[in-house]
């Protein structure tokens, strides 16, 4: 007995040990793919939500774009390619038919079907959605069979596929189980399941999400698209870490702590170019930076002008515009990495007109004269809201402009903040004067006019997804935007765009600054394709 007991213990320990070993070996075999390849990626800001229809922001979509997919993808040159839909065509002028890909599964294992498409587009059309601009021409979405969907538009919509390429598909069942059938209300900082959790069909799945610290995506081996040789990524894991300090971010890249910096500061580009361990991937961005003035309220917030709104006077808007020395900003703040502009969007966008891309000249004397004529000979005080981790050198540009305005007597107080507080603030319309950058994912003028210039409450305006927080409203512009929406004759439509661009130039609803030129920086063992929408696509990113 005395001898048997130890033996028994011994045996059982051995047995459990061997069981554990087998389990561990099995687990390892399952977990470890051929070879672990992690891309450590950094940029200045962190997504303020993971809800796929809540924030139409580049910082959000650049992460979600690896996890979720749209019916239509964009290729390396931004051309439309089959995504979750294999084909699409118009069966009637207002009816688009999408053939869905079969056998696609969400990350939780659910099947992707027509019901999910109907649900997702419906979700993007809800009032809390920020994606209305992509779906507001849609009248209804009809399921034809499990793998065919019809999208019926209110009027013929020639660029519907361009817009659909930006609407992510969710699983209806997952959303319903987690009470997330409508998008999160980011303005009010609502908490819900989709803020931190995802369930897409894309090439990577979310493994860890710690807001402002790190986000880990792992390869979805079951993704349908890996069969396509163009999707030659060898990444098994993506680690995203926001680093807001420019110097720290670049130091991390140089020391090999991160592999990819999306937004290297312009002042460091020269140094990065001279370093053999890193490579600068050049390319323009389809994004324009500008200032928006509140032209709607009777009295400005955060200003010393009481009883009236100086920005309602076009002379004041022109004065602020005349005061800006854009060439100095381009040379000193942007180190040449910007294209000064006088228009709403860059040349890559359909409808761009060179003759409308003309700035009001830098002329402080004229600016002071205009201010005096408008009744502000001594200027006035106003607060300029500005993000400090969203656009290239955003805060520095604002600082420079504040000094330029000071020279014509406009005392602008700079209120710079991180994007997590900045965007909810301006979306609450809690600002009189703010900086904005607008990328054009559809590569068509309508997107900019609808999102920024058309009256908020007009039928052609963006409605709840409008970013026209300055409240600009011009009936003639609205009429022209209406033509952009439904005119199918390209020549007539482009004429309407040109006319609207002229009004934009003459009426100064915004003060345009520049188009961003946005080089990316990678360690030299990373192969990545620069995308003009500034949305890195990991489907064809490799690390050696």
């Amino acid at each position, binding site marked *: 007995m005395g001898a048997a007991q130890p033996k028994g213990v011994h045996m059982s320990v051995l047995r459990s040990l061997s069981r554990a070993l087998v389990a561990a070996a099995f687990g390892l075999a399952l977990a470890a793919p051929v070879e672990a390849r992690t891309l450590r990626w950094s940029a200045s800001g962190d997504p303020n939500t993971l809800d796929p229809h809540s924030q139409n922001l580049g910082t959000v979509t650049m992460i979600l774009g690896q996890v979720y997919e749209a019916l239509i993808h964009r290729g390396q040159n931004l051309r439309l390619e089959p995504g979750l839909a294999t084909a699409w065509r118009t069966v009637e002028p207002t009816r688009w038919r999408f053939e869905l890909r079969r056998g696609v599964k969400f990350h939780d294992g659910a099947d992707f079907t027509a019901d999910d498409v109907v649900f997702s587009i419906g979700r993007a059309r809800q009032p809390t959605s920020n994606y209305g601009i992509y779906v507001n021409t849609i009248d209804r979405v009809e399921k034809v069979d499990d793998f065919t969907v019809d999208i019926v538009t209110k009027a013929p919509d020639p660029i519907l596929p361009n817009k659909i390429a930006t609407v992510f598909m969710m699983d209806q069942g997952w959303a319903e189980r987690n009470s997330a059938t409508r998008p999160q209300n980011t303005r009010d900082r609502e908490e819900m399941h989709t803020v931190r959790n995802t369930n897409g069909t894309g090439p990577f799945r979310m493994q860890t999400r710690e807001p402002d610290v790190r986000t880990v995506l792992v390869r979805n081996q079951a993704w349908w698209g890996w069969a396509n040789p163009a999707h030659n990524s060898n990444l098994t894991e993506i680690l995203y870490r926001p680093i807001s300090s420019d*110097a720290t971010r670049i130091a991390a890249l140089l020391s090999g702590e991160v592999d990819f910096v999306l937004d290297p500061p312009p*002042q460091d580009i020269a140094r990065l170019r001279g370093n053999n361990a890193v490579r600068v991937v050049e390319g323009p961005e389809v994004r324009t930076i500008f200032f928006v003035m509140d032209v709607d309220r009777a009295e400005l917030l955060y200003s010393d002008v009481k009883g009236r709104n100086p920005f309602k006077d076009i002379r004041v808007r022109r004065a602020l515009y005349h005061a800006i020395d854009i060439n100095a900003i381009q040379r*000193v703040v942007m180190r040449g990495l910007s294209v000064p502009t006088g228009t709403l969007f860059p040349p890559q966008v359909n409808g761009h007109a060179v003759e409308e891309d003309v700035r009001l000249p830098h002329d402080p004397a004229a600016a002071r004269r205009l201010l005096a004529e408008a009744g502000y000979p001594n200027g006035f005080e106003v607060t300029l809201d500005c993000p400090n981790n969203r656009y290239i050198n955003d805060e520095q540009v604002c*600082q420079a402009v504040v*000094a330029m305005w000071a*020279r014509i007597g406009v005392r602008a107080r700079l209120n710079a903040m991180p994007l997590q507080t900045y965007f909810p603030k301006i979306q609450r319309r809690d600002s009189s004067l703010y900086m904005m950058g607008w990328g054009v994912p559809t590569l068509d003028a309508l997107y900019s006019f609808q999102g920024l210039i058309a009256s908020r409450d007009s039928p052609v305006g963006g409605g709840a997804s409008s970013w026209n927080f300055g409240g600009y409203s011009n009936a003639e512009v609205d009429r022209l935007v209406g033509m952009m929406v439904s005119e199918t004759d390209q020549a007539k439509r482009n004429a309407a765009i040109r006319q609207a661009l002229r009004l934009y130039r003459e009426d100064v609803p915004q003060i345009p600054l520049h188009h961003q030129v946005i080089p990316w920086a990678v360690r030299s063992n990373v192969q990545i394709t620069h995308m003009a929408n500034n949305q890195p696509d990991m489907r064809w990113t490799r690390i050696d």
Partner: protein
Amino acid sequence: MSAAPRSPGRLARLLDSDIAYSFLHSPVALPSALVALLCIGGALLAPWIAPHDPFDLAGLNLLDAFTPPVFMPEGRLGFLLGTDDQGRDLLSTIMHGARISLLVGFSAVLFAMTLGVAIGLLAGYVGGSLDAVLMRIADIKLTFPTILIALLIDGVVRAALPRELHDRVALPVVIFSIGFANWVQFARTVRGSTLVEKNKEYVQAARVIGLHPLRIMASHVLPNVLGPVLVIATLNLGFAILAEATLSFLGVGVPPTQPSLGTLIRIGNDFLFSGEWWITVFPGLALVTMVLSINLLGDWLRDALNPKLR
């Protein structure tokens, strides 16, 4: 007729004292006092003697930005130490920044001293359970790193107050958080000295004639325990300035519209890699010089006032 023996004047008496002798003959005291005086004087007089006004936005020219210091090939005489990313003259900005740093430093030390001396006196003189409680609180306080406490207070206030108020209260909050993080040293020292003093005859005499304990503490004990407090205050000034710079470097200190030395170092940090080293190095040097000279002065004062070291 011989001249009436004149009692020496105040100045003469001071010059004749041990302290003055030590000051004039110490290898560090005089130079460091001179440097500290230069820093403080430059900071205090900044609005009148600085070559430019860095807060006058209308006077800034973006095209002046990134001008290197005057001794470099592209340097310009108008900007001795060069300019920052917005075209501000660095020398003027440093002088104005040092003003904010000194303001925060002095105020924080004054606050810590007032709080610490009061608590120390009370604990030492009253003794008993009050002493035990106050000193245990001090012990607990000592287990936290001071910068952590300052960060904590700062963070809590920021979270509690609406954003619009932040800029207005930032300066008092920084002063409070640094001051609050530093009172223990004062309290400990004063308590120790008070314990010694309270058993001396003059205090007993005061007690016997029925003076109120508060009066005894304030006018009899306090003047006799102030010597070491002065030393700690000087040494603490250097620390408080550094703490403010740390907080501002982390972006939670004074508002960017009133840049202190720490803020300037943080701004310049973004340009370290791109070759514009002067934007961060000169404010850093200014900070080091100022704190070093004040600390050396404090060290000397400690030695000079310590009878055992004489």
